[in-house]
């Protein structure tokens, strides 16, 4: 492509129309700086009536915002909280919510739209060139800094007095340890509390629906019941902490259908008590399918076979679901015979 093909206006000029200096192609810089394109005026810059129109538009937007804000306050004061209206296409909605949202939205949007319109039509839109300069310091400054540093190093005598230097390094290296030691106070050590729950020999199983102890005859084959340990009340200050470990689900399977011998031994006439906490990351699992005897975790689809010792048959869980050994007491109520043998819930560092 020869220079003849380039349209005249695209060729570099020595000066742009504002008179600013513009680089010209030479030996070192084969490509010339084309400079800024000529400034074009907006209609508002030329026509005073158009500028007035824009001014009125901006003022109208700001006024709209003011009215919407007043509308917000008025809606808050006048609309009852329980009034429901139908708004297409949202459907039934609380009149107060709708009015507050709309007025607040309009008030904010009108401020933004007004500011954008103001900036685009009325404020100056002339492009301004601000030349960059080199970041590097001048050679004199550099030489002075280096000389100062060398003199300082010589006066401190760090190179010669090695004892001072080494002990200083030691002090600086040890000092952060005090901060690390304080991290211990972030919380008490877990101790063995991850290994124990509220269940212990003789604790009655309490139905979470009725808050009553249960008899074996209450639990039908194919049913699902949730239980908590006797003595734990919902208003206890540590209820959440304790139920998170002790939550129990009770199912009943025909003893012939129980595949695992220990599972059958730990049950009472086919009534099985399993922890409700997934061994993967601790989600509550109770998506029980009574025909397959599988329990599914809704978080990551871990699946456990309750007829076979709570064995993991699918998904990321690493341990079988812990089973609680149960029996009946002298009065005929279901009770725990022991705590869970393994820690419930997700694995942890020292679980082994």
């Amino acid at each position, binding site marked *: 492509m020869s220079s003849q093909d380039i349209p005249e206006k695209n060729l570099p000029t020595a000066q742009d129309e504002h008179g600013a200096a513009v680089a010209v192609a030479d030996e070192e810089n084969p490509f010339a700086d084309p400079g800024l394109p000529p400034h074009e005026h907006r209609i508002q810059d030329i026509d005073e009536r158009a500028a007035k129109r824009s001014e009125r538009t901006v003022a109208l937007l700001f006024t709209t915002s003011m009215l919407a804000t007043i509308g917000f306050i008025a809606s808050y004061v006048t609309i009852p909280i329980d009034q429901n209206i139908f708004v297409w296409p949202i459907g039934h*909605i609380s009149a107060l919510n*709708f009015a507050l949202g709309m007025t607040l939205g309009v008030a904010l949007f009108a401020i933004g739209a007004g500011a954008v319109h103001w900036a685009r039509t009325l404020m100056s839109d002339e492009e301004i060139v601000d030349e960059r300069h080199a970041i590097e310091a001048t050679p004199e400054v550099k030489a002075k800094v280096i000389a100062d540093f060398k003199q300082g190093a010589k006066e401190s005598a760090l190179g010669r007095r090695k004892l001072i230097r080494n002990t200083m390094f030691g002090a600086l290296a040890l000092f952060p340890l005090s901060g690390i030691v304080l991290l211990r106070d972030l919380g008490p050590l877990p101790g063995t509390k991850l290994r124990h729950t509220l269940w212990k020999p003789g604790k009655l199983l309490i139905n979470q*629906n*009725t808050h009553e102890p*249960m008899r074996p005859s209450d639990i039908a084959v*194919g049913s699902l019941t*949730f239980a908590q340990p006797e003595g734990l009340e919902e208003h206890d200050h540590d209820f959440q902490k304790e139920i998170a470990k002790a939550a129990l689900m009770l199912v009943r399977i025909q003893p012939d259908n129980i595949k695992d011998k220990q599972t059958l031994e730990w049950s009472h006439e086919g009534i099985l008590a399993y922890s409700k906490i997934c061994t993967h990351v601790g989600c509550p699992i109770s*998506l029980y*399918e009574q025909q397959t005897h599988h329990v599914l975790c809704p978080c990551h*689809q871990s699946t456990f076979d309750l007829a076979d010792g709570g064995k993991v048959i699918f998904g990321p869980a690493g341990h079988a679901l812990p089973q609680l050994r149960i029996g009946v007491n002298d009065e005929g109520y279901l009770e725990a015979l022991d705590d869970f043998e393994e820690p419930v819930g997700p694995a942890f560092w020292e679980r082994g």
Partner: protein
Amino acid sequence: MKKLSARRRHPLAAVVVLLLALACTGGLYAVFAPADKAQAEETSQSLAIDEGKKLYSVGCASCHGTGGQGTSDGPSLVGVGAAAVDFQVGTGRMPAQQPGAQVPKKKNIYTQAEIDQLAAYIASLGAGPAIPTAELYSPEGADIAKGGELFRTNCAQCHNFTGKGGALTHGKYAPSLEDVDPKHIYEAMQTGPQNMPSFPDTTMSEQNKKDIIGYLHAVNSDDTVEPGGLNLGGLGPVTEGLFGWIFGLGALVAVAIWVAARTAKAKKS
């Protein structure tokens, strides 16, 4: 007495005697009638069982066996009770169209009278839960807050916290509870259809079930009040976040592009 005997030849005496005789007959009939009525009821019950057996042989026996004992294609129906029949047939799940992971709800082709006859027949095979009365499952008089608590403890893991349903393993699913007849919800809790566990009265009392139905009526029915509007399927934070990111952010991007794409210059290039 003299007066009465003196009138024994009165022209109306015969009429009076006749009336007395009729009254006596009527009274005697009234004394024996209840026994007859009870007999009639018993016959109508056994008639219903007979009719139900006929319906059963046509619609159900091929999978559940000629006597409801079950085959390799369908479970035994001995002891499932009338409530299970009313649920399965009333929601159109039974008779099943084809084997599969789960039998879906479909159009019910039986009349309520026929369903009652089928239920009577199945109930005669073995004792099981009866069809609940309207008083048990009506949402009136339910403690909705307690119902919500019970629903979240017992049902929400599969059916979602407002009963919108959810997926299970191998193509099985917990169906949505929207617009399900309260009677069918009650029966499902009592009998545990398909893979759903049952929640018998011994572990979830009648009042508990009523509270749950009241809660579902409040959050997932035509009468549900939605103060927030546009519930996006009630599926929780995933749909809400997706909607916010796609449509909320999308609208902001569109406005920004529109503002920048329009030039304010007098000479349009």
